[in-house]
């Protein structure tokens, strides 16, 4: 298992870090951290869960959006696009290492 992180600071947003535990080409666990706000706060666990598995990365934003809609989450100072971007960056770093 390898952990890879990416930091995203989108304009107008707070600092976001996405850390993924990767093994066997699969995301085993994900952590979304930073100084943003998500209401209700426990909703972050649902977003982290949505990053796990062997996700179709193209659909990541849509998947995160469905979590936001289903949970009635409100994101302030962070966006699903930034979370998806952080996850993609963390995975691509891992892919680059494992394919080299």
């Amino acid at each position, binding site marked *: 298992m390898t952990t890879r992180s990416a930091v995203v600071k989108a304009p107008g947003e707070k600092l976001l870090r996405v850390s993924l535990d990767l093994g066997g080409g699969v995301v085993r666990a994900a952590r979304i951290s930073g100084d943003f706000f998500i209401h209700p*706060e426990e909703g972050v666990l649902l977003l982290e869960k949505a990053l796990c598995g062997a996700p179709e990365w193209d659909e990541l934003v849509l998947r995160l959006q469905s979590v936001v809609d289903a949970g009635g989450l409100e994101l302030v100072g962070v966006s699903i696009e930034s979370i998806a971007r952080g996850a993609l960056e963390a995975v691509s770093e891992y892919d680059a290492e494992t394919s080299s």
Partner: protein
Amino acid sequence: METWRLILDPPGRGARNMAVDLAVLHSLVRTVCSPTLRLYSWNPPAVTIGYFQRIEEEVREEECRREGVAVIRRVTGGGAVLHEHELTYSVFIPLAHRAAPRSIRESYELLCGPIVDALRGLGLDARFSPINDVLVGEAKLSGSAQTRRDGVLLQHGTLLIDVNAGRMFRLLNVAKQKSAKGEPQDRVSSLRRLLGERALSADFAAGLAGRIARAFSERLDCDFEEGRLSAREEEEALRIERELFNLDAWNRDRSIRPVFAGPAD
């Protein structure tokens, strides 16, 4: 005019301060009562991190241990703070109340308004800076964070009286991305820096608390009656301190929820 409760708390330890905030929030959830404004400070100094932050990313734990500074994760989002020379406010408002706009961004602006007013009353050119800051010039003097739980809004925030920059940068990791805006020490200000040594006196602190209460009263059209924590709030604060904010299970792990109060009165 509606009467709100004003609680002026003595300086408290970190876990205690955060536990009282949660106990008062629970109290408003349980009973139909008026909004509350709590003003307090910190002794000994403590570090708090935001709900979504991780201690290992934000805090130099070894240094904190060496200096006897406790590290506590808040129930609110936002950034890591070294609470040392500051006045802290917490405001508790039922979500159905006129002073709790549904929009989170709007409610930050509304509830940071009294902080801006109080600073302007001191002759400072203060302004609200979205999402959750109050600036004087380009430097931050106050930051706030909000949560909404079970129909009640809690917003708490700091007002920096003095900044121990050396200690702050010794205890906290300052992310490189943030430093791109300029030198970290220039992005934070304090009342001492702006107003001089008089900002450090006990009289000044008491006067500042009065100014903030008056500013809330004027901006939100309410009167204050000074009160104290109820026996139940006191008892619950002790329990929350022990069973939540003193536990690694809370401070390091998001999998436990803030403990909740018992049945309604």
